[in-house]
């Protein structure tokens, strides 16, 4: 019953596998998001401190998690790709980046929406906001590098190297921003530390799962396109295109 990893790592078989998985993840994401949003907007109680505005965290927090997590996954695939020269790894890294950038952007945007009623301003140079902003810059840098390199092989490897050096840097950036933040602002603004209602936590976890499913579905869809484009000269792709 050995699960043959190499079998599924071949783009031709992975293409088929991804095609079968995408509907499950896409629908899963839609259903979970519907449940999560229902809980978030109708079931969860109004926060006694923050009023209704806090409800944006049901989108904000999962988006922030995903933005960071997807970067780690990209770094993982980049390392695998560089170490084992597997084509699919680079394709996965490329497929994930736009989704990661989108989630990071959403988390910044919703963070601003949340910040306005809470802190009275759209943007504060808080450690978390700032490091998320820099994470977005890293995503943009990687996407720009890919866009600038025409040669596919070079683009794959260059992007992977940049992702990795970014990944090494992210914790340091986070630490340095926190360091800077305590120096300049003290602990003036921090999200309120009130313990979270159980139903709120449940809603957030469901939304996080929805974000996961969405990210997987989006990445798989994108990787399928990349596979088709890259392997368009091979027989199996020609057979698919003829159908």
């Amino acid at each position: 019953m050995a699960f043959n990893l190499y079998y599924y790592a071949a783009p031709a078989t992975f293409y088929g596998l991804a095609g079968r998985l995408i509907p499950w993840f896409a629908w899963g994401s839609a259903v979970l998001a519907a449940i999560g949003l229902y809980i978030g907007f109708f079931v969860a109680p109004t926060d006694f401190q923050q009023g209704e505005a806090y409800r944006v965290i049901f989108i904000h927090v999962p988006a922030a998690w995903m933005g960071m997590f997807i970067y780690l996954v990209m770094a993982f695939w980049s390392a695998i790709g560089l170490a084992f020269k597997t084509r699919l790894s680079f394709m996965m890294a490329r497929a994930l980046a736009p989704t990661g950038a989108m989630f990071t952007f959403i988390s910044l945007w919703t963070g601003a929406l949340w910040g306005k009623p809470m802190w009275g301003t759209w943007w504060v140079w808080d450690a978390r906001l700032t490091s998320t902003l820099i994470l977005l810059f890293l995503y943009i840098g990687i996407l720009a590098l890919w866009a600038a390199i025409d040669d596919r092989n070079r683009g794959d490897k260059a992007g992977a190297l940049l992702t990795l050096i970014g990944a090494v840097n992210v914790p340091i950036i986070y630490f340095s921003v926190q360091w800077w933040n305590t120096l300049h602002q003290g602990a003036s603004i921090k999200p309120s530390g009130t313990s979270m209602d159980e139903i709120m936590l449940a809603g957030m976890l469901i939304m996080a799962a929805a974000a996961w499913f969405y990210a997987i579905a989006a990445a798989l869809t994108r990787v399928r396109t990349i596979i088709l484009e890259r392997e368009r000269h091979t027989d199996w792709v020609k057979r698919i295109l003829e159908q």
Partner: protein
Amino acid sequence: MYEPILSVTDLACARGERTLFRGINFQVQAGEILLVQGGNGQGKTSLLRLLTGLSTPLEGEIRWRGERIQDCRERYHAEMAYIGHVNGIKDDLTPMENLRMAAGLAGRRLDEARAEQTLGRLGLALCLDLPARVLSFGQRRRVALAGVLTAGALLWILDEPLTGLDVHGVALLESLLHEHTEQGGLVVMTTHQPLSLAGACIRPLRVGDTDVTPTSELTPQGQ
């Protein structure tokens, strides 16, 4: 007894989307010149860059004295000299400084007297103190050739070495190639111009169409 020093098996090269060539096999032994032929864009330069180790092949392997070149990179590069389309010399340095830098970067000591002699032989005796910037294209090509000569390498990889050389330059290169092969050196080169290399051991290799095999005829070009 045939003992190839450089041997290539099933070499394939892709440039972006396109496979330039596939299934290239050849061997070069001491005292031989491999003359790579083919039209523009057929992959001659790419083949030479694969041989230098600057780029990695899609498939196949290149062996130097029986070892894959990526496994014996340091030894291989110590025995190899390459001239590409660009000369690899700095415009702000004089020919002599260029040779000195090249030797230093390759971890060699430059024999100044011999280097001066080499530059003199290549017709650069009057340009020793001029920055390469003011030299003509052909003269700069000669400086690059002087670099190859002073490197004392066994294998020369020359990409269109004749570009920019005048009649005397071509004749000079021909005699240099003769000397090098007579001393047991190897040459892999491309050229569009005719070279008269009577007496030298030349293997032609056609690069281009998908099935590339070395032709057995050993007819020197330009005869």
